[in-house]
């Protein structure tokens, strides 16, 4: 399972559509999305309220605290919205240490309001917890003690008995309305395979709940069950997570295969590069370089698993090697080709792709003064390791090769010793 954040626009779209389906009642939510490809005239025709309402515009980029950052504009007419958006679209901003361009905005009617409520539902292992407070919005952080939480065990619905403590202190005239709202939203949360849903704040318009700021996460492993319900859903990358060309290429390979191929550049000039089999093992290799004090020299995180085909491994390995050898500065570098003991992946078969790539990149590897460290076990590993040793002799690049008799991360220590030894 994988929890994926969705844009505020999609959260509200799903809420509006399915609240009606589940309860028969309409939520008067209105929202529109603006991206670089948006035709403003077309949008205005499609959403007439844009011309008749005062509006709010916010970035829809999976980060919060937008108001405090000067990225939200209130009480505008549409022309002002267009002006505000055009000024900021594509511009880079920094939020909590992450930088990235703003690519998407959400526009909504401006709703003057007095009350700000807080609602949060989170999926937990044994059920779902639902939190509610009368002090929502910016004030939430000063009023955590006023947030009330109830737990609903798996298989149960949100009953009046469970809701009662959450809404106990509300005035009588709105208690029923909000209680009903919480129940339907909870049902919707379960029905659509949300894992997280937050409205901070929601207010009351004509006595009816209206979410102002909203955030949601879906379980994307439930996509096969929900593709009709979710409609045209988007799972954006986390804010600030801008992939380089090489990372995008691998991401594309990963999406086309049933295997797993992951690649992240950490330090393009790093002198220790990894290419590791297995999701669990690859993290440990990166950990170990860091834990032994050489995090700053770690060039990348890379992982392959799930028995990729030789051709896929070849393309993947080419990218890793190109990045590892991109900055030949006379200093020695290490390539760690590691992995645990496979359960059923044929080691020699996956190594074949890597070996082809290493042959192709022989001159680059030499120019970068690359030393290669290999460790692997599992089905057909003897042949795989023998192929690696033979390759080292064939292309004249030192390749240290180990099987399961060596510790998995021993080659990390060797790689560190190699790059730190006197030239």
């Amino acid at each position, binding site marked *: *399972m994988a*929890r994926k954040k969705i844009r505020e626009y999609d959260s509200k779209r799903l809420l509006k559509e399915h609240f009606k389906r589940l309860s028969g009642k309409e939520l008067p939510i209105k929202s529109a999305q603006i991206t670089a490809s948006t035709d403003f005239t077309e949008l205005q025709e499609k959403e007439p309220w844009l011309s008749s309402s005062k509006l709010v515009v916010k970035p829809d980029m999976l*980060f*919060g*605290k937008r108001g405090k950052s000067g990225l939200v504009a209130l009480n505008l007419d549409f022309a002002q919205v267009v002006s505000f958006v055009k000024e900021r679209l594509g511009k880079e901003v920094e*939020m*909590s*240490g*992450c930088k990235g361009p703003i690519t998407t905005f959400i526009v909504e009617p401006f709703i003057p309001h007095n009350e700000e409520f*807080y609602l*949060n539902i989170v*999926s*937990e*292992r*044994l059920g779902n917890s639902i*939190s509610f407070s009368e002090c929502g919005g910016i004030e*939430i*952080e000063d009023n955590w003690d006023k947030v009330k939480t109830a737990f609903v*065990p*798996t*298989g149960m619905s949100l009953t009046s008995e469970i809701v009662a403590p959450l809404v106990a202190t509300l005035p009588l005239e709105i208690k029923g309305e909000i209680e009903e709202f919480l129940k339907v939203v909870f049902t919707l949360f379960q029905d659509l*395979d949300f894992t997280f849903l*937050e409205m901070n704040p929601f207010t009351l318009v004509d006595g009816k709940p209206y979410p102002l*700021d909203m*955030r949601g996460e879906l*379980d994307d*492993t*439930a996509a*096969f069950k929900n593709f009709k319900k979710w409609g045209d859903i988007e799972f954006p990358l986390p*804010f600030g*997570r801008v992939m380089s060309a090489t990372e995008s290429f691998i991401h594309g390979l990963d999406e086309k295969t049933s295997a797993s191929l992951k690649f*992240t550049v*950490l330090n393009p000039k790093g002198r220790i590069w990894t290419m590791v089999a*297995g*999701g*669990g*093992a690859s*993290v*440990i290799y*990166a*950990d*170990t*370089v*860091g*834990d*032994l004090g050489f*995090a700053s020299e*770690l060039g990348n*995180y890379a992982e392959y698993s799930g028995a990729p085909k030789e051709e896929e491994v070849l393309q993947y390995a080419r990218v890793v090697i190109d990045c590892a050898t991109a900055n030949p500065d006379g200093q020695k570098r290490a390539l760690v080709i590691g992995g*645990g*003991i*496979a*359960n*059923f992946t044929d080691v020699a078969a996956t190594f074949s792709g890597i070996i082809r790539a290493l042959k192709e990149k022989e001159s680059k590897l030499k120019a970068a003064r690359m030393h290669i460290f290999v460790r692997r*076990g*599992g*089905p057909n590993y003897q042949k795989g390791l023998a192929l690696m040793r033979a390759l080292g002799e064939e292309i004249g690049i030192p390749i240290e090769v180990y099987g*399961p008799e060596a510790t998995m*991360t021993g080659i990390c*220590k060797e790689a560190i010793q190699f790059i730190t030894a006197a030239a």
Partner: protein
Amino acid sequence: MATGQLFSRTTQALFYNYKQLPIQRMLDFDFLCGRETPSVAGIINPGSEGFQKLFFGQEEIAIPVHATIEAACAAHPTADVFINFASFRSAAASSMAALKQPTIRVVAIIAEGVPESDTKQLIAYARSNNKVVIGPATVGGIQAGAFKIGDTAGTIDNIIQCKLYRPGSVGFVSKSGGMSNELYNTIARVTDGIYEGIAIGGDVFPGSTLSDHVLRFNNMPQVKMMVVLGELGGRDEYSLVEALKQGKVSKPVVAWVSGTCARLFKSEVQFGHAGAKSGGELESAQAKNQALRDAGAVVPTSYEAFEAAIRETFDKLVEEGKITPIKEITPPPIPEDLSTAIKSGKVRAPTHIISTISDDRGEEPCYAGVPMSSIIEKGYGVGDVISLLWFKRSLPRYCTQFIEICIMLCADHGPCVSGAHNTIVTARAGKDLVSSLVSGLLTIGPRFGGAIDDAARYFKDAHDRALTPYEFVEGMKKKGIRVAGIGHRIKNRDNKDKRVELLQKFARTHFPSVKYMEYAVQVETYTLTKANNLVLNVDGAIGSLFLDLLAGSGMFTKQEIDEIVEIGYLNGLFVLARSIGLIGHTFDQKRLKQPLYRHPWEDVLYTK
């Protein structure tokens, strides 16, 4: 959650969704451990029933296959483990069906990608019914010397190297299936080995948790120490921290949480106001490792030091007399699979079929070494495909064109010829296309279309022996053999067969030599002096012209030509060509919805 032992040397399982390899691996493990009974009691393959043959050591055994979970549980009431190899789409539903069976106590779910809400339903049901779920996204688990789930621990070589065929003293639990195999190896190297190992799977909400299994191990006297491998993300490790703090775990725990590298990645911002409250930092590997250390677990400073920490903890237990050395046993040898042995060159197995004309290994099929894409890209036709598959070579364009002309000219000759007649009768009897087609094809023989090869043989023999037409014809007559390729029921001297004329014209234009055809014409000239209908027919024309093609193209040795004529390649042309017409007649009758054919009485002479 069960309090202790899950498996034993007599544990039996039901395997959902037939996968030959993991089942065979389980049976090989059973044999290696000296189990008397196989651990797989039955297989559930929805919609199937019967048996699957597998090996238990040297013997082949038949394991029952059941169509439903309910039927399998009823047939095997002592099998209390359900191993689910269903895909992510159906894994949850089949697992729930299994949990609801009174005989099933443990369910292992191999699939990755099971929706979170479905897993939670399984967890809730298992908890309220005191059952155990391992997974989803698990490779499984193992009790050394007793029971193995699916692919756990990988190859037999690895199992032997990790001494999993006999019990040790260490209980191991991990989130990662791949790293489980690695740790079995490490633990075997520095301790007396694994007693039980469980991979709970990498999902956010595992069916059973790290602490669930540690507490089980704590209750099992055979387990003297525990090794735990966690991961960043989630809060599962904290329930173990709580258990340690509360003194619920009395045996040493050596733990490591991987993911210390996460700080190297640019961190995501805190999201919204609730983010400030959620324990983002608590989920980091560093925080978890520190919390475990503070709670009393042995936690090294890096994974690299994990092995040493395990060794020290084990050695201390031995010094304190809490662990007695294990008497080593030698596991029985397991015969190697034939396919594996062949692949590694240990045995030679004779093949049963030889193919020289086509090869479907590799990227695409090849006809006589020519890739299919090449055939399409070069604009080859049916004649070229025939030259490759029948003659195993690419022939010059005029040869392949001649082949195609033969096919076109012989495709059909009306509904009254015997083959077409038989096809039509069969089609009108309501038979399917293939039956109707073969009715016509089976009519092909010495008197209908099957004379090409004989014509070629006799014309070739006579010509090569330099017999005059008189000598050839009279010689055959003396032997009582009809001259194949001569004679037609309808065509005669004054009404020549157009097909023959077309073939001859093409050959005179394109063939380097037409000596056999010329000889056949001379024979025809002689036979026409005897009777008006003794003309060269289409069989004779094709037979003689094909001899010219073989001899004149320079593509065949004399030996090859002799072999082609001897084997009888040429009737194949008629069979292939006439198939087109016979299929057409079948479609025609069916299109016209023609009723059963009954031959009219008046056309039969009833007599004594």
